[in-house]
């Protein structure tokens, strides 16, 4: 094949792919694409939200769907900053931004609704993917554009500077590590920027990037699953292995009296408005029993807590300096974000995934910054026969569900009433 023909074929491939993808809105790809189009390149913190955007996002397997709007300042929700009101900023990553819920379901929005009448406006400054350095840059930018910032609630996130081992193995790094690499290596910054912009312009480039990333991730997952299957064969006798392989737990045939069977025809001819499906786990007892796989990882609290990474400390230091310079109050909030740590916390034990919170808490308390640790209230994540811990988080995703956001807003409300009342 000569070069000319090869170039022609490649170009034609890209053109056709671009046309095809834009025409044929494949649900799964549309979901990822809509996540892409709400973002834009930001020279300071790499990825921000695209101002004045409004899209409806629908997860392709129905895990969540909702309105995603961004105002002119690049803040979630269309409401603009009111120059006459004192502002309280919710600063954080995706968990603050409200990944997985609609605009009006984010906890920052819910708090805004509650405190507006008291003269406070809550602004959602969360952007997914930000780390500590990103928070600093984002805050700096907003301080220049928004007046009367009274308080900044800084939500420390588990993946700002730490990452569970299983994700590290899959090549997923903490946000601060990625940001540091970008700052230190201009070449990486250039490539990251070029890739971000090109994937924004061309659907086909975006899809190629997505595929490569997901493939690497999938292979890491397959490897881990194979290991689990191998473990299974090792730990089981041959007969048991065969039984487990072919026999499922027995499904008992139901006894249905004949006259009851007719009940299914009741809805014929009508439009049946089925009651909203209740998907909550309905736990029989509270606090819930700790699953055995998690229980074995629960332990006593560590006596010594390591220092934060230098890069993270520097970012926090800069935020502290901003608070002095611009006279706003900084409050650090730690949310229960990983079910493992919540289960262990409920039996007054510690889970290694909680280390990030302890580290951040230690740092800020040393610097006399108030820390609101919502982990203290995790027992209220369970209500007998209604909902349990897992109902607050999107499965296999970990972001807060609508219920999770309500829980956070209610708990923060109590802290805020006290805090604002004291002043």
């Amino acid at each position, binding site marked *: 094949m000569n070069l000319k023909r090869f170039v022609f074929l490649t170009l034609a491939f890209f053109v056709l792919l671009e046309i095809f*993808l834009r025409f044929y809105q494949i649900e799964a790809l549309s979901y990822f694409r809509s996540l892409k189009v709400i973002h834009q390149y930001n020279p300071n913190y790499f990825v921000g939200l695209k101002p004045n955007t409004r899209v409806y996002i629908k997860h392709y397997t129905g895990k969540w769907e909702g309105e995603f709007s961004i105002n002119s300042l690049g803040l979630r929700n269309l409401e603009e900053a009111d120059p006459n009101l004192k502002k309280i900023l919710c600063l954080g990553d995706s968990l603050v931004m409200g990944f997985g819920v609609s605009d009006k379901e984010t906890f920052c929005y819910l708090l805004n609704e509650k405190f507006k009448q008291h003269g406070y406006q809550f602004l959602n400054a969360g952007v997914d993917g930000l780390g500590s350095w990103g928070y600093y840059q984002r805050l700096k930018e907003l301080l220049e554009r928004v007046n009367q910032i009274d308080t900044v609630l800084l939500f420390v996130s588990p993946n700002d500077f730490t990452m569970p081992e299983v994700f590290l193995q899959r090549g997923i790094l903490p946000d601060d590590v990625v940001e540091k690499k970008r700052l230190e290596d201009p070449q990486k910054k250039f490539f990251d920027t070029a890739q971000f912009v090109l994937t924004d312009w061309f659907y086909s480039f975006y899809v190629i990037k997505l595929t490569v990333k997901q493939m690497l991730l999938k292979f890491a997952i397959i490897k881990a699953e194979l290991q689990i299957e191998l473990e299974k064969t090792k730990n089981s006798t041959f007969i048991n292995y065969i039984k487990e392989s*072919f026999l499922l737990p027995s499904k008992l045939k139901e*006894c249905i009296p004949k006259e009851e069977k007719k009940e299914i025809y009741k809805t014929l001819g009508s439009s049946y408005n089925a009651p909203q499906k209740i998907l909550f786990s309905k736990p029989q007892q509270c606090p819930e029993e700790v699953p055995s796989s998690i229980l074995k990882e629960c332990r006593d609290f560590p006596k010594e807590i390591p220092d934060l990474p230098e890069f993270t400390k520097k970012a926090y230091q800069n935020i502290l300096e901003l608070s002095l310079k611009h006279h706003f109050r900084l409050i650090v909030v730690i949310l229960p974000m990983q079910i493992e740590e919540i289960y262990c916390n409920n039996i007054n034990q510690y889970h290694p995934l909680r280390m990030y919170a302890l580290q951040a808490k230690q740092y800020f308390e040393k610097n006399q910054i108030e820390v609101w640790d919502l982990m203290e209230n995790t027992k209220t994540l369970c209500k007998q026969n209604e909902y349990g811990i897992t109902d607050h988080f999107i499965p296999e995703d970990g972001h807060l569900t609508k219920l999770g956001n309500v829980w956070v807003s209610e708990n923060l409300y109590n802290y805020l009433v006290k805090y604002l009342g004291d002043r």
Partner: protein
Amino acid sequence: MLFNSLHFFVFILIVIPVFFLLPERYQRYWLLIVSFYFYAVFKFIYIFLLLYSIIISYVSIYYIDKSKNIRIKKIFLWIGVIGNLLVLLVFKYSVQLYDILNFLLGFEPCNKEYIQPPNIILPMGISFYCLQSISAIVDVYRGLVEKPKNILYYALYLSFFPQLVAGPILRSKDLLKQFYLGKKFDLQNFRSGLFQVCLGLFKKTLIADQISPYVDQVFSAPWEYHSISMWIAVFLFSLQIYGDFAGYSDIAIGITRIMGYDLPQNFNRPFFSKTMGEFWRRWHISFSSWLRDYVYIPLGGSRVHAFRMYVNLFLTMLISGLWHGAGWNYLIWGGLHGMFLLGERLFLSIQFIKRLGEKLPEWLIAFVGIAYTYSVFSFTFFLFRAKPLVFPETNFTASPLDVGWYMILRALIPSEGKIVIPSLQYFVLIFALFIVEYWMEHEDKKIYIKNFIKSDYLYIVAGVILFTCLTIYSVTVSQPFVYFQF
């Protein structure tokens, strides 16, 4: 491993180049190894079932071939056939056997004595390779084919990965001998195979999988939907199952063609059929012809009295229904098809209808025939696609038969509810698919396809389809093929 998965993409990128790089005498060993690997990925333990079928069938074939005594031949024929049917009975039909046993003993689920059936997993592909084994044994018994050279060839014939889990159900005369010869890479085979693979992926991933959410939502809560939605769901399901199953066959045939083997076609554009009889000659051909040769003809076929022939036909369709699934709804589905086949034959044998057919313009007959066939085929899916459901305000699980019947009533009695409207772009792709099929159907139009396969455009279009599919598999969980459950 599913054809529509990342794993398979990588698998095939290794299997085919290595196949051609190996000396010809080792190619078959390579295929055998990778076929077992392909099957083991579903679940390692399934391999033992496959080995069981290989051994019992080969031993039967060996003695049928070796023995001169007709009685011994017959004994081994039955050993082989029953040995394979036993796998199906245990793994596929045990629940129904328990149902029958309970019925005979007069036990109802409400009785204490009721014998609860075990919940056994249905291993992938047994419905296909057990039938394939039976055909191989019977063909040797009938003297139609020679015994395979050795057990390794037989093992490869049964486990050959492209057709292992969802057919086509191959006859030993079609495939076995092809393994005796080595294969060399051939660009023409590659191009034509690539075309077929892409056509299959297009049908499966870009049509069937995209339609399935619309079908699923109606079948998972029919009481919420309008009568029209019931019809939309079944009409869409016919397209979905066609995309799904014909897509699988296309991928299988395409891959084998790239490797230089030739498989007979399994679907011959069934949606152009004008009668149900024609439909069954075009749909899942390898299975219909299996039924014809190993069920219908042994029952007496068409060489008997007309009444007996109709009974044979009906029985064959009942068996076809049962093969598709171990449930009473499938049995009735098969029965319905049987009834339409009978009715159709009777109707078309009326002199007046025959004469009318000669007078009417061809296009009108084609239009009415195709619309009738598509409607009947779709209508029967109410029973076929139904799954157990818990209806609102009841606290029991309705059986697929009850659900299917409920949906038929809901489709016929005007009922209020939500209306399902799939996006327009799906129809554009379906339309594109039927244009391609139309060209393939007509001799004078076939040239378009041939020219396309010869041109560089093939690579561009194949690249787009392969890449889009790869992307979909990497971001989602692959949708299993509908026919895997049978």
